[in-house]
Structures are given as structure tokens and as C-alpha cells.
């Protein structure tokens, strides 16, 4: 019972159990944080609102297409529309950070309903916030990702811009939440 093997095994098991307990306590401590995040998103301009060559509605910055390899142009639907827009995103997410926070992943998604789909969520922009100091920010940007619909349902469409955040801990449970900002609308006609 006192051989090296037994002792090594006992120490290892004990060590791992304690580590697991500490991880759990660190994660539980995150529950005591009551965050008060705030944000405002302004759409400065709808740059481009077109029907894609093969159909889908999309808003996109035209220059980007030249650099994109052909294989991404696979035909999606018979009809689809595209959107390109510029937004001002302001947010204060400092209250989300705890001592156990590794980073916060934040993204803005456009949410809308169409006759075919009860819910459409299209991510327009995202960023990683590595520390509390960077969590209060103002960003002016065009949409990072293609705002494409499955179909051409976007003309005159009302949509919400939702700011989502995922708080990634150094260890333990990940928290996610969102702030819905309704009241945006796309133009009635393509341009």
C-alpha cells in the first residue's frame, strides 16, 4: 500500500480532483456577475441592393467580389437577393468581463421573417474582444459577411439588428445573450 505506484496514483487522482473542483468554483463565481451591457446600431447607408446574377437578394460591396474565388459562386436558388450596408456600431460590454473571462465574442445579426422561413438570421459583423479595456467601442463598418436571402424577399423588408455576445471563460460554462434592436427597413426597390 505504500509503493511508489500507489502513492503516485493517489497524488495524481487527488490533484486532478482538486483541479476539477477549482474549475467548477471559478465557473460558479461567474454567476454572481450581473452584467449591464448596452448598445446602439445605426445604419448609415445601404450601399448596394441587388439581385445576384443567379438570383438571391444580396447587399454587398462590389469590390469584394473580384477577389472571391469562383467556387463560392455556386448557384443557390433560382432567385436570391443581396444587400451591402454600412453601420455604426456602439457598445459598452465592459460589465460582461469577470476575472474568469478569456474573451467575449460579439456579433451583429440581421433577423427577419419571410413567407418561406419563420426565422432568418444572417450574421453581418463580428469581433473578438480580448480584454475589458477594449469592451467599450465604436465601429463604423460595412457588413463583413454577405447579407444574402434565400430568395428575393428583401425589398421593403423590416428587420431587427441583434447584438449577440458570447462570454468565453478561462474555464467552465460559457454565457451567451443578446440585445434585440428592432426598427430597420430595407429599400422598396433594388439599387
Amino acid at each position, binding site marked *: *500500500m505504500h*509503493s511508489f*505506484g*500507489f502513492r503516485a*496514483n493517489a497524488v495524481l487522482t487527488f490533484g486532478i480532483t482538486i483541479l476539477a473542483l477549482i*474549475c467548477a468554483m471559478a*465557473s460558479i463565481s461567474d454567476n454572481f456577475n450581473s452584467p449591464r451591457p448596452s448598445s446602439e446600431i445605426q445604419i448609415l447607408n445601404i450601399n448596394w441592393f441587388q439581385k445576384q446574377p443567379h438570383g438571391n437578394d444580396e447587399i454587398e460591396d462590389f469590390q469584394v467580389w473580384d477577389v*472571391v474565388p469562383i*467556387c*463560392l459562386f*455556386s448557384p*443557390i436558388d433560382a432567385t436570391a437577393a443581396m444587400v451591402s450596408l454600412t453601420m455604426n456600431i456602439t457598445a459598452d460590454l465592459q460589465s460582461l468581463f469577470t476575472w474568469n473571462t*478569456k474573451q467575449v*465574442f460579439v*456579433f451583429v*445579426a440581421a433577423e427577419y421573417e419571410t*413567407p*418561406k*422561413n*419563420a*426565422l*432568418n*438570421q*444572417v*450574421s453581418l459583423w*463580428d469581433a*473578438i474582444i480580448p480584454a475589458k479595456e477594449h469592451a467599450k467601442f465604436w465601429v463604423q463598418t460595412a457588413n463583413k*459577411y454577405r447579407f*444574402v436571402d*434565400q430568395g428575393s424577399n428583401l425589398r421593403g423588408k423590416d428587420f431587427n439588428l441583434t447584438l*449577440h455576445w*458570447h462570454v*468565453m*471563460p*478561462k*474555464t*467552465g*460554462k*460559457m454565457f*451567451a445573450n443578446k440585445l434585440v434592436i428592432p426598427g430597420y427597413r430595407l429599400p422598396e426597390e433594388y439599387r
Partner: protein
Amino acid sequence: MHDGKRLKNGREIPIVHRVIKVHERQETEEVEVLTKGDNNYGDDRLLYAQGQLWLQRHHIMGRAVGFLPYVGWVTIIMTEKPIIKYILIGALGLLVITSKD
């Protein structure tokens, strides 16, 4: 709905990537999803099967809910250097056999 999701696409290794587009049908429970790795420039369509543009529910194995740092290294080491697996099991077996109770 945009958290890290594990997906399978005919390959052995599940991938944890983020959802960037969701289209959920009216009436039915069907959902179509597009994913992207945070560090990748483009979305995952290049990783999907030939001609596949969306992931459906049955392609998604699960969802990331938390982090346990460094635990994955145990699996990685045992897969890359299988001898360690044998040594570990051998040592545990020896321990069991030589125990007096």
C-alpha cells in the same frame, strides 16, 4: 443560436465552428445553417460535401457550452502516440494486480 457547433460532414473528425447564417422554415422544424471558423477568411462551404450549401439538424452533433482547459491534450497525446495509451493501461493493470485487497 450562433454558438460553436460540432458538425460532421462525412469525415471522421467533428469540427467546432460558429454559425453565421440560420434559415428556419415556417411550420416545420427544418433549419438550414451555414458555419465558419473564426480564424478562417471564408465560410465552411469548402468543407461541406460536394454540392452541399447548408447544414441540417442531422449534420450537427452538438453545441459548445463551456471550456475545460488542456483536457483535450490527453486525447491528442493518446491518439498521436498510442504507446502512451498502452503504457497507461499497462500501469493501471499492474496496480490492480499487485494490490493486496
